[in-house]
């Protein structure tokens, strides 16, 4: 049997919803679960469980079957509509075949008979964690693979561009040579005109090729379904060492059930850039308990991303121009002055959204609003 520590190291950031109506059992198991998982949401009946799942991301459900108001099966059935991938452990005081059939229908992963023995519960959790970890690993690999495929496509595009440009440049060079060799070669005035025209034609051609390449690049940035939890975790991973070194705390609040499609690479770039700015500000201003919070939610017809920090805020002198090129929020030795400008261009041009930055209680808040559209539109 695995120890609590071993299970806890497998548990990473997975969240648990635990539902049980018997207070004594609930308190007991809740204590054990909290030793393993960082985020445990506890409900005393199915309705409470469903409510909790609407405001929080849930990876694992551990639930009693018989509960007042709404039983375990009904609760899992409802939650699965939003989280089809959620892993489930059912706890029951009865050993009835009727339950088993319903369990199969709901693809319950584990089924434990009360009273709950520690090693049975630990064994079930271990199995579930292995399942979730391998799923997570697969997702990450897919993400990397997609990136690689895109990189190859882009480098092919660039090779093509380089080839065609060199052809045109050769012709322009030769044309210039001819004009400069004019006297030696004794070329007719008329011919020189046509040589110059030809060179100009090639310059236009080069410009057209460049436009085509940009168009093709834009098209390659297809909209994809975003799992915001996965995307934010992916972005945060890069800064993990800095978070630890400067003890920066992260608060994430992502609304569930967001059905959103966008250009993932572009969006990641925006998030990374704003995060980097916040981290740098915390470090530069020597903030002891740095906190960055990320809030993603839908409001009316907009998807909103708020990233705020407590690093002192944006200096008044540059507040109006932080999205202009060559304005740096940092010390001029460090900042390039382009980071936020690129964020601005990507948000407004590529994603057709809006961006703003304001100072709020001791820090700054960057807000991005993107039009909320479902895939089919």
């Amino acid at each position, binding site marked *: 049997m695995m120890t609590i520590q071993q299970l806890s190291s497998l548990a990473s950031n997975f969240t648990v919803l635990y539902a049980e109506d018997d207070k004594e059992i609930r308190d007991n198991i809740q204590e054990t679960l909290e030793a393993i998982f960082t985020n445990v949401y506890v409900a005393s009946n199915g309705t409470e469980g469903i409510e909790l799942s609407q405001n929080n991301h849930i990876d694992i459900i551990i639930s009693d079957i018989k509960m007042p108001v709404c039983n375990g099966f009904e609760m899992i059935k409802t939650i699965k509509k939003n989280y089809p991938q959620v892993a489930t452990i059912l706890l029951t005081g009865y050993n009835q075949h009727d339950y088993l059939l319903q369990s199969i229908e709901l693809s319950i992963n584990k089924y434990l008979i009360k009273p709950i023995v520690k090693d049975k519960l630990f064994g079930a959790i271990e199995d579930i964690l292995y399942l979730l970890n391998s799923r997570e690993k697969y997702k990450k690999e897919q993400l990397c693979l997609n990136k690689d495929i895109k990189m190859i496509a882009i480098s092919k595009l660039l090779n093509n561009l380089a080839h065609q440009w060199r052809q045109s440049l050769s012709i322009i060079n030769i*044309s210039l040579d001819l004009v400069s060799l004019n006297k030696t070669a004794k070329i007719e005035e008329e011919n020189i005109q046509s040589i110059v025209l030809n060179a100009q034609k090639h310059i236009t051609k080069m410009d057209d090729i460049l436009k085509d390449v940009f168009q093709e690049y834009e098209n390659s940035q297809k909209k994809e379904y975003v799992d915001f939890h996965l995307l934010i975790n992916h972005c945060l991973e890069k800064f993990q060492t800095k978070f630890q070194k400067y003890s920066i705390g992260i608060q994430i609040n992502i609304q569930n059930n967001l059905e959103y499609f966008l250009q993932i690479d572009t969006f990641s770039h925006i998030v990374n850039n704003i995060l980097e700015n916040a981290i740098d500000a915390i470090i530069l201003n020597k903030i002891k308990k740095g906190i960055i919070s990320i809030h993603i939610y839908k409001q009316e017809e907009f998807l909103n991303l708020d990233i705020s920090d407590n690093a002192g805020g944006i200096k008044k002198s540059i507040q109006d121009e932080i999205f202009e090129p060559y304005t740096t929020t940092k010390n001029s030795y460090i900042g390039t002055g382009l980071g936020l400008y690129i964020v601005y261009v990507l948000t407004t041009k590529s994603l057709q959204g809006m961006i703003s930055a304001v100072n709020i209680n001791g820090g700054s808040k960057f807000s991005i609003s993107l039009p909320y559209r479902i895939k089919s539109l």
Partner: protein
Amino acid sequence: MTTEQKVKYKELTVLFVDDEKLIIEAMNDILPVLFKKAFFALNGIEAIEIYNDNKIDIIITDLNMPKMGGLEMVSYIKTINKEQKTLFVSGHNEVEIIKESKDLCDAYIVKPISYKVLFQALEKIF
């Protein structure tokens, strides 16, 4: 370009091989000015036919061409005339290929072509 160079190269007959028609057209304007005589071919096979009927001092060739590429063509011509002078014109990502087949070429230039780079390369050969 020194007068000395001009005179020296004015004595040469070149065979220029490239599958890009636009390049051939542009070269058709300038090579006859720079050299004694210039022949043009769109691929290795055409080049070999011209080579068989004419005395060529220097072959200037592209690498990738349909029917027969530059390397294949030059290897064949070298079996007829081991001493044949050759100059390869390379795209940006083909330099490695040329370096691997050193014995086939006397010099190479990287696109874009201009008469200055062309003459600099010829300086190495003649």
